[in-house]
């Protein structure tokens, strides 16, 4: 059974449609990235899943119950966008409070803080923390107990690259243990490598819901190839491949995905003239702009 099921979820604020007919599921152990521009409805969707705001239409099932149900809240962890804490408390005190609220032993607090790399600052007031450190307190509280669903709104904002990598490694561990993860992010490159499926929202509508490979197939965006020619033969290579030459020795080619193998064998045929070749599939950024532009209201 899916941990999270949205069917035709609809939410309006006055005349604004924040979400229209959004339907998707998140299975146990699955990591799903929710992408969209600012105001696309990501945070609204998350708040509905958490039971913080009510939805107008459609149905939401979280761990088999209504969102916000107390038994459900015990098993759902949340990391809000721009997470905030009271500045007068220390990281350790804040985490102890959260542990007690979840009915977990407070002796776990230090271990959780060390897990997110905050052990050294545990006894300092949160008011003295940097944004990245506050974000880590937020991550630490989301790891309390063994949540079956994690809802993470921009979890890596404010984190340095090494902390981001550690964070995704932690998520991998949780997912391997069967937790479902729904996260939103603006950092498309990290989402690309570390999630199983991508849901793209645009103006409140779901415009994509598939794995990265499937999205590439659906979009059929042109593949780029960069061929690096040997000295003095760049023009010959360019004319025989039909590409555009730039910066001396490099030739750029762009072609539909189904021509990939044919193009590669063309290049191999010119092996004597070619120094190197790179095949660049459409990036998530390209896919994202492709799917986001599809909506016409």
């Amino acid at each position: 059974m899916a941990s999270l099921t949205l069917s035709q979820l609809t939410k309006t604020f006055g005349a604004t449609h924040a979400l229209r007919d959004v339907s998707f599921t998140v299975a146990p152990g699955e990591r799903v990235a929710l992408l969209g521009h600012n105001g696309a409805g990501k945070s609204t969707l998350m708040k509905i899943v958490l039971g913080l705001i009510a939805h107008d239409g459609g149905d939401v099932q979280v761990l088999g119950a209504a969102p916000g149900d107390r038994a459900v809240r015990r098993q759902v962890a949340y990391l809000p966008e721009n997470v905030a804490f009271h500045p007068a408390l220390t990281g350790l005190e804040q985490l102890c409070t959260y542990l007690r609220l979840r009915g977990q032993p407070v002796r776990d607090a230090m271990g959780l803080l060390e897990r997110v790399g905050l052990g050294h600052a545990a006894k300092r007031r949160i008011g003295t923390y940097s944004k990245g450190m506050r974000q880590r307190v937020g991550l630490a509280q989301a790891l309390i107990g063994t949540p079956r669903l994690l809802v993470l709104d921009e979890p890596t904002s404010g984190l340095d690259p090494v902390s981001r990598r550690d964070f995704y490694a932690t998520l991998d561990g949780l997912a391997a243990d069967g937790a479902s993860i729904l996260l939103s992010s603006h950092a498309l490159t990290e989402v690309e490598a570390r999630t199983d499926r991508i849901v793209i929202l645009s103006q409140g509508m779901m415009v994509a819901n598939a794995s990265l490979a499937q999205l590439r197939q659906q979009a059929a965006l042109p593949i780029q190839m960069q061929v690096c020619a040997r000295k003095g033969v760049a023009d010959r290579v360019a004319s025989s491949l039909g590409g555009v030459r730039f910066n001396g020795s490099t030739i750029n080619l762009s072609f539909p995905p189904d021509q990939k193998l044919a193009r590669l064998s063309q290049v191999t045929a010119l092996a004597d003239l070619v120094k190197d070749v790179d095949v660049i599939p459409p990036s998530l950024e390209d896919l994202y702009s492709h799917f986001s532009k599809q909506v016409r209201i």
Partner: protein
Amino acid sequence: MNAILAISAAEFRIAFRNRWVAIAIAMMAVFSLVLTGAGSAPTGTLGADRLSVTVASLTSLAVYLVPLVALLMSFDAIAGEVERGTLPLMLTYPLGRFEILLGKFIAHLLILSLAVAIGYGLAAGAAIWADPRASAGFPAMLRLFWTSLLLGAAFVAIGYAISSLARRPGAAAGLAIALWLVMIVLYDLGLLAAVVADDGGRFTTRIFPWLLVGNPADAFRLYNLAASEATAAAAGIGAAAHAIPAAHALASILLWPLLGLGLAALAFRKVTP
């Protein structure tokens, strides 16, 4: 229950760090000592023991100060969480909104009881030190203590309701001060004006006592005065104190904290994170 106490512990720690505990205690202590000093003059002429006179003075002080301290502690409770952005996360934890209120309520009531106990304790100590007969006023002092806590509890709860309705700390602070002014100062003045204008008519005999007992601050004053003959002599509304049964005043100060919490719960439920 553990979750409620976790909220209380965090709230108490925050109040302690923000000097609110110190401020509340200092305010109660300073005013109590000043009143004890000022109240020492008429002791001989009244024939009452020193502590009973202190209680009478403290009653008049508490009517102003206890609601003020209570509102100052509570106005930020919800609006502050909304402003800091800490509310959404807390609401996703497995505890109800009423439990959050109750957790904060316990912490604020604890701070208030510390402040009142220290303030009154100092005043009582001074009275007993100056007058060996003062122990006769001890029951009155005890009554003043727990009724002060009930009065404070009512205004802490009303403060939460204001905090939930205002949503912003600045607006909540303004509303809290306005409420204090209306309920503690203007209410009595308004009633007094109405009684004078009515000149002993139906309003004075039928409606006025209910209006008086309906205000928790007035009920608090009436109950403490009615329960203590010695202090009634020292107060201006002694006549009113006799017209209203002490049980009605007691019921009012017992009900107001519950009513306040009910209002706070209703208002907090409407806050969308």
